Protein backbone atom coordinates (compact mmCIF):
# COMPACT_ATOMS: atom_id res chain seq x y z
CA UNK A 1 0.00 0.00 0.00
CA UNK A 2 2.69 2.42 1.04
CA UNK A 3 4.81 1.46 -1.94
CA UNK A 4 2.00 2.10 -4.37
CA UNK A 5 1.43 5.56 -2.91
CA UNK A 6 5.12 6.40 -3.35
CA UNK A 7 5.05 5.14 -6.91
CA UNK A 8 1.94 7.19 -7.57
CA UNK A 9 3.55 10.33 -6.15
CA UNK A 10 6.69 9.73 -8.21
CA UNK A 11 4.57 9.41 -11.33
CA UNK A 12 2.88 12.71 -10.54
CA UNK A 13 6.24 14.35 -9.97
CA UNK A 14 7.79 13.00 -13.15
CA UNK A 15 4.61 13.76 -15.06
CA UNK A 16 4.87 17.37 -14.01
CA UNK A 17 8.49 17.51 -15.14
CA UNK A 18 7.96 16.07 -18.56
CA UNK A 19 4.92 18.22 -19.33
CA UNK A 20 6.03 19.93 -22.52
CA UNK A 21 5.13 23.56 -22.93
CA UNK A 22 2.78 23.59 -25.78
CA UNK A 23 2.71 26.51 -28.13
CA UNK A 24 -0.03 26.12 -30.69
CA UNK A 25 -1.74 28.50 -33.03
CA UNK A 26 -4.81 27.29 -34.88
CA UNK A 27 -5.24 27.31 -37.78
CA UNK A 28 -1.49 27.16 -38.24
CA UNK A 29 -1.41 28.89 -41.63
CA UNK A 30 -2.76 32.06 -40.04
CA UNK A 31 -0.02 32.35 -37.50
CA UNK A 32 2.62 34.25 -39.38
CA UNK A 33 2.52 37.55 -37.52
CA UNK A 34 1.15 36.33 -34.20
CA UNK A 35 3.91 33.90 -33.47
CA UNK A 36 6.76 36.40 -33.02
CA UNK A 37 4.70 38.36 -30.52
CA UNK A 38 3.99 35.31 -28.42
CA UNK A 39 7.55 34.03 -28.69
CA UNK A 40 9.06 37.07 -27.05
CA UNK A 41 6.88 36.96 -23.94
CA UNK A 42 8.99 35.99 -20.95
CA UNK A 43 6.28 35.69 -18.33
CA UNK A 44 4.47 32.81 -20.01
CA UNK A 45 5.55 29.29 -20.71
CA UNK A 46 2.93 28.25 -23.20
CA UNK A 47 -0.03 29.44 -25.20
CA UNK A 48 -2.81 28.14 -27.36
CA UNK A 49 -4.41 30.41 -29.82
CA UNK A 50 -7.37 30.34 -32.16
CA UNK A 51 -7.74 32.80 -34.98
CA UNK A 52 -10.50 33.57 -37.45
CA UNK A 53 -11.44 36.64 -39.50
CA UNK A 54 -12.80 38.71 -36.62
CA UNK A 55 -11.27 37.30 -33.49
CA UNK A 56 -8.00 36.33 -31.92
CA UNK A 57 -8.28 34.13 -28.88
CA UNK A 58 -5.12 33.44 -26.87
CA UNK A 59 -5.08 31.27 -23.79
CA UNK A 60 -1.78 31.60 -22.00
CA UNK A 61 0.00 29.60 -19.32
CA UNK A 62 1.51 32.18 -17.04
CA UNK A 63 4.62 31.31 -15.05
CA UNK A 64 3.86 30.22 -11.49
CA UNK A 65 4.98 33.35 -9.67
CA UNK A 66 4.01 35.78 -12.39
CA UNK A 67 0.37 34.83 -11.78
CA UNK A 68 0.11 37.62 -9.25
CA UNK A 69 0.31 40.03 -12.18
CA UNK A 70 -2.14 38.02 -14.27
CA UNK A 71 -4.31 40.99 -15.28
CA UNK A 72 -1.32 43.15 -16.22
CA UNK A 73 0.24 40.41 -18.35
CA UNK A 74 -3.05 39.82 -20.11
CA UNK A 75 -3.41 43.52 -20.82
CA UNK A 76 0.15 43.87 -22.08
CA UNK A 77 -0.14 41.01 -24.54
CA UNK A 78 -3.57 42.19 -25.67
CA UNK A 79 -2.16 45.62 -26.53
CA UNK A 80 0.73 44.17 -28.47
CA UNK A 81 -1.55 41.92 -30.51
CA UNK A 82 -4.06 44.70 -31.12
CA UNK A 83 -1.26 46.82 -32.58
CA UNK A 84 -0.48 44.04 -35.03
CA UNK A 85 -4.11 43.20 -35.84
CA UNK A 86 -6.06 46.44 -35.41
CA UNK A 87 -9.11 45.09 -37.29
CA UNK A 88 -9.69 42.07 -35.04
CA UNK A 89 -11.08 41.62 -31.56
CA UNK A 90 -8.46 40.25 -29.22
CA UNK A 91 -8.98 38.19 -26.07
CA UNK A 92 -5.95 37.16 -24.04
CA UNK A 93 -6.56 35.23 -20.87
CA UNK A 94 -4.74 33.10 -18.36
CA UNK A 95 -7.93 31.30 -17.39
CA UNK A 96 -7.57 27.53 -17.27
CA UNK A 97 -11.16 27.04 -18.44
CA UNK A 98 -10.55 29.05 -21.61
CA UNK A 99 -7.38 27.06 -22.14
CA UNK A 100 -9.38 23.83 -22.02
CA UNK A 101 -12.02 25.23 -24.37
CA UNK A 102 -9.39 26.35 -26.85
CA UNK A 103 -7.77 22.93 -26.63
CA UNK A 104 -11.07 21.28 -27.44
CA UNK A 105 -11.46 23.51 -30.52
CA UNK A 106 -7.98 22.55 -31.66
CA UNK A 107 -8.64 18.88 -31.00
CA UNK A 108 -11.89 18.90 -32.98
CA UNK A 109 -10.30 21.01 -35.75
CA UNK A 110 -13.44 23.06 -36.14
CA UNK A 111 -13.91 25.04 -39.33
CA UNK A 112 -15.71 28.25 -40.34
CA UNK A 113 -19.19 28.38 -38.79
CA UNK A 114 -18.55 26.01 -35.91
CA UNK A 115 -15.33 27.81 -35.11
CA UNK A 116 -17.11 31.12 -35.07
CA UNK A 117 -19.80 29.79 -32.76
CA UNK A 118 -17.29 28.29 -30.35
CA UNK A 119 -15.31 31.49 -30.23
CA UNK A 120 -18.42 33.51 -29.45
CA UNK A 121 -19.28 31.03 -26.70
CA UNK A 122 -15.87 31.37 -25.12
CA UNK A 123 -15.99 35.14 -25.32
CA UNK A 124 -19.32 35.29 -23.55
CA UNK A 125 -18.01 32.84 -20.95
CA UNK A 126 -15.03 34.99 -20.16
CA UNK A 127 -17.23 38.06 -19.77
CA UNK A 128 -19.26 36.47 -16.97
CA UNK A 129 -18.84 38.19 -13.70
CA UNK A 130 -18.76 36.47 -10.36
Amino acid at each position, binding site marked *: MKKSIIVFLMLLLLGACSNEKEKVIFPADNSASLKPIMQKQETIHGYKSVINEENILVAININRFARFNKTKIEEKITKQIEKQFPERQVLVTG*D*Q*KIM*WEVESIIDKKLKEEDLKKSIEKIKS*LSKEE*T
Partner: protein
Amino acid sequence: MDQQQFQKIVDEKNPKVPYFLNILKAFIVGGIICTIGQLLTFFYMRFFPFTEGTAANPTVATLVFIAMILTGTGIYKKIAQFGGAGSAVPVTGFGNAVISAAIEHKSEGYVLGVGGNMFKLAGSVILFGVLSAFVVALIKTILVSIGVISW
Protein backbone atom coordinates in the same frame (compact mmCIF):
# COMPACT_ATOMS: atom_id res chain seq x y z
CA MET B 1 -0.01 33.40 50.31
CA ASP B 2 -0.30 36.57 48.30
CA GLN B 3 -1.38 37.14 44.76
CA GLN B 4 2.15 37.12 43.33
CA GLN B 5 3.06 33.77 44.79
CA PHE B 6 -0.23 32.34 43.60
CA GLN B 7 0.27 33.69 40.10
CA LYS B 8 3.74 32.17 40.04
CA ILE B 9 2.36 28.74 40.88
CA VAL B 10 -0.35 29.10 38.25
CA ASP B 11 2.18 30.08 35.59
CA GLU B 12 4.37 27.18 36.56
CA LYS B 13 1.56 24.66 36.37
CA ASN B 14 0.06 25.92 33.15
CA PRO B 15 0.76 23.45 30.39
CA LYS B 16 3.02 24.67 27.60
CA VAL B 17 1.17 25.33 24.40
CA PRO B 18 2.85 23.33 21.61
CA TYR B 19 2.87 26.17 19.10
CA PHE B 20 4.95 24.44 16.45
CA LEU B 21 2.85 21.29 16.53
CA ASN B 22 -0.35 23.34 16.41
CA ILE B 23 0.92 25.31 13.43
CA LEU B 24 1.87 22.10 11.65
CA LYS B 25 -1.52 20.53 12.31
CA ALA B 26 -3.29 23.70 11.18
CA PHE B 27 -1.19 23.72 8.01
CA ILE B 28 -2.03 20.12 7.19
CA VAL B 29 -5.76 20.37 7.93
CA GLY B 30 -6.08 23.74 6.21
CA GLY B 31 -4.08 22.44 3.28
CA ILE B 32 -6.30 19.40 2.89
CA ILE B 33 -9.45 21.52 2.96
CA CYS B 34 -8.00 23.91 0.37
CA THR B 35 -6.90 21.01 -1.83
CA ILE B 36 -10.43 19.65 -1.77
CA GLY B 37 -11.62 23.14 -2.69
CA GLN B 38 -9.18 23.31 -5.60
CA LEU B 39 -10.29 19.90 -6.86
CA LEU B 40 -13.90 21.08 -6.69
CA THR B 41 -12.96 24.19 -8.66
CA PHE B 42 -11.38 22.05 -11.38
CA PHE B 43 -14.41 19.79 -11.35
CA TYR B 44 -16.77 22.70 -11.91
CA MET B 45 -14.54 24.16 -14.63
CA ARG B 46 -14.16 20.88 -16.43
CA PHE B 47 -17.75 19.71 -16.46
CA PHE B 48 -19.73 22.94 -16.20
CA PRO B 49 -19.39 26.27 -18.00
CA PHE B 50 -17.52 28.04 -15.20
CA THR B 51 -14.29 29.94 -15.63
CA GLU B 52 -11.61 30.34 -13.00
CA GLY B 53 -13.35 33.47 -11.81
CA THR B 54 -16.88 32.12 -11.62
CA ALA B 55 -16.10 28.58 -10.41
CA ALA B 56 -15.39 29.98 -6.94
CA ASN B 57 -19.11 30.40 -6.26
CA PRO B 58 -20.27 26.80 -6.66
CA THR B 59 -17.07 25.66 -4.93
CA VAL B 60 -17.83 27.73 -1.84
CA ALA B 61 -21.42 26.53 -1.84
CA THR B 62 -20.29 22.90 -2.04
CA LEU B 63 -17.73 23.31 0.71
CA VAL B 64 -20.31 24.92 2.98
CA PHE B 65 -22.68 22.06 2.17
CA ILE B 66 -20.01 19.52 3.14
CA ALA B 67 -19.31 21.50 6.31
CA MET B 68 -23.01 21.40 7.09
CA ILE B 69 -23.12 17.61 6.93
CA LEU B 70 -19.92 17.29 8.97
CA THR B 71 -21.28 19.74 11.57
CA GLY B 72 -24.61 17.97 11.85
CA THR B 73 -22.95 14.61 12.37
CA GLY B 74 -20.49 16.03 14.89
CA ILE B 75 -17.38 15.26 12.82
CA TYR B 76 -16.40 18.87 12.21
CA LYS B 77 -15.93 19.45 15.92
CA LYS B 78 -13.36 16.66 16.03
CA ILE B 79 -11.57 17.97 12.96
CA ALA B 80 -11.48 21.41 14.60
CA GLN B 81 -10.07 20.06 17.85
CA PHE B 82 -7.21 18.57 15.83
CA GLY B 83 -6.73 21.26 13.23
CA GLY B 84 -7.44 24.48 15.11
CA ALA B 85 -7.06 27.47 12.82
CA GLY B 86 -6.64 25.13 9.85
CA SER B 87 -10.33 24.31 10.02
CA ALA B 88 -11.54 27.68 11.27
CA VAL B 89 -10.04 29.95 8.62
CA PRO B 90 -11.30 28.32 5.37
CA VAL B 91 -14.91 28.91 4.38
CA THR B 92 -15.87 25.61 6.03
CA GLY B 93 -15.15 27.25 9.39
CA PHE B 94 -17.56 30.03 8.52
CA GLY B 95 -20.15 27.46 7.51
CA ASN B 96 -19.60 25.57 10.74
CA ALA B 97 -20.11 28.74 12.80
CA VAL B 98 -23.39 29.52 11.04
CA ILE B 99 -24.74 25.98 11.05
CA SER B 100 -23.80 25.09 14.62
CA ALA B 101 -25.59 28.22 15.86
CA ALA B 102 -28.62 27.38 13.74
CA ILE B 103 -28.82 23.82 15.11
CA GLU B 104 -28.38 25.07 18.64
CA HIS B 105 -31.13 27.64 18.51
CA LYS B 106 -33.70 25.55 16.70
CA SER B 107 -35.43 24.94 20.03
CA GLU B 108 -36.50 28.59 20.23
CA GLY B 109 -38.36 28.49 16.93
CA TYR B 110 -37.44 29.40 13.38
CA VAL B 111 -37.82 33.17 13.40
CA LEU B 112 -36.46 34.31 16.75
CA GLY B 113 -34.34 31.22 17.36
CA VAL B 114 -32.70 30.16 14.10
CA GLY B 115 -33.16 33.47 12.29
CA GLY B 116 -32.09 35.64 15.16
CA ASN B 117 -29.10 33.65 16.29
CA MET B 118 -27.75 32.05 13.13
CA PHE B 119 -25.10 34.73 12.66
CA LYS B 120 -24.33 35.02 16.33
CA LEU B 121 -20.74 33.86 15.75
CA ALA B 122 -20.40 34.50 12.03
CA GLY B 123 -21.86 37.99 12.20
CA SER B 124 -18.57 39.50 13.26
CA VAL B 125 -16.84 37.77 10.34
CA ILE B 126 -19.25 39.45 7.94
CA LEU B 127 -19.02 42.85 9.63
CA PHE B 128 -15.24 43.00 9.81
CA GLY B 129 -14.87 41.41 6.37
CA VAL B 130 -16.92 44.21 4.85
CA LEU B 131 -15.15 46.81 6.96
CA SER B 132 -11.65 45.66 6.01
CA ALA B 133 -12.64 45.45 2.33
CA PHE B 134 -13.81 49.05 2.54
CA VAL B 135 -10.58 50.18 4.19
CA VAL B 136 -8.39 48.38 1.66
CA ALA B 137 -10.38 49.83 -1.24
CA LEU B 138 -10.09 53.29 0.29
CA ILE B 139 -6.32 53.02 0.61
CA LYS B 140 -5.96 51.79 -2.94
CA THR B 141 -8.19 54.59 -4.25
CA ILE B 142 -6.02 57.16 -2.51
CA LEU B 143 -2.79 55.57 -3.77
CA VAL B 144 -4.11 55.47 -7.33
CA SER B 145 -5.34 59.07 -7.26
CA ILE B 146 -1.98 60.40 -6.11
CA GLY B 147 -0.36 58.23 -8.76
CA VAL B 148 1.73 55.81 -6.72
CA ILE B 149 0.18 52.74 -8.31
CA SER B 150 -2.30 52.03 -11.05
CA TRP B 151 -5.41 49.87 -10.95
